[in-house]
């Protein structure tokens, strides 16, 4: 179903339809994440991917045209390039451990320690929260910095526009 949505996304030329399809795609992705036991990530994806992103896209569409022009040339070179990257990735994925393999390195390195010691050391039963806020707190700090910088960038870009408009009128 996700694959069908993505193909429709790539073919559609009406940008409004593309944005609505992208929202539906985000909800599908959130459903898949619930099935993969990543409930915190699924909640964030549903709120941020399907909610905030869609609002941002619609705001941008309101300020621009909502119809995409026909491409001037056939997309043969991009198709070949993307397929080449895909073939390389398939070749690379052959060396990865199979799905849900309990002996894979991802399950034997630091994860058992977080799961065994996390509740004792932090007092939080949700291990994702414990790791996010306690063990890897610096990640969240860096993330806040990125969001702050992006906010400054957006303000700088859009404020200049208003000033130009005021000078023209």
């Amino acid at each position, binding site marked *: 179903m*996700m*694959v069908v949505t*993505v193909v429709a*996304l790539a073919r559609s030329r009406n*940008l409004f339809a*593309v944005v609505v399809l*992208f929202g539906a795609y985000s909800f599908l*992705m959130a459903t898949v*994440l619930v099935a*993969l*036991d*990543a409930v*915190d*990530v699924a909640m*964030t*994806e549903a709120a*941020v*991917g399907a909610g905030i*992103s869609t609002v*941002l*896209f619609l705001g*941008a*569409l309101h300020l*621009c045209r909502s119809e*995409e*022009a026909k*491409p*001037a040339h056939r997309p043969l070179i991009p198709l070949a390039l*993307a397929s080449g*990257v*895909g073939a390389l*990735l*398939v070749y690379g*994925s052959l060396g*990865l*451990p*199979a*799905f*849900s*393999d309990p002996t*894979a390195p991802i*399950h034997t390195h630091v*994860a058992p320690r*977080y*799961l065994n010691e*996390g509740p004792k050391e932090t007092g939080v*039963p*949700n*291990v*994702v929260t414990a*790791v996010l806020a306690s063990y890897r707190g610096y990640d969240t700090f860096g*993330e806040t910095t*990125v*969001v702050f*910088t992006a*906010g400054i960038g*957006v303000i700088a*870009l859009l404020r200049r*526009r208003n000033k*130009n408009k005021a000078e023209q009128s």
Partner: protein
Amino acid sequence: MSTLAGYFSYAVTIFLLVAGLFIIIARGNLIKKMVGLGIFQTSVYLLYIAPGKLVGGTAPIIAPGFHVYSNPLPHVLILTAIVVGVATLALGLALAVRIHEAYGSIEEDEILEQDNADAGSKERGG
């Protein structure tokens, strides 16, 4: 057969990644490019989350009666990635809106045409 099923999640991830890459390169519309970037990002979420799942396990919230949990570390990393992704998206869309203000278009071809016409007239004038 079981080996094929074991690689199904990688196949979906790779298809989404290739589709996102194709949209980014092949489409000239700037907003369509941002959608392609979003699809590319979600494929990476899947790449991180899928190996952390254990069949028969539950979400990593410690409770009595459960002993098998999925790996919490990729969840944390991807939570950060989602928020950073939305910040990048906002910045990219702001750039697209600004380009639309300056050129009256968000199509790559038309923007390049205008740029070339400007350079040509400048060369003739100087």
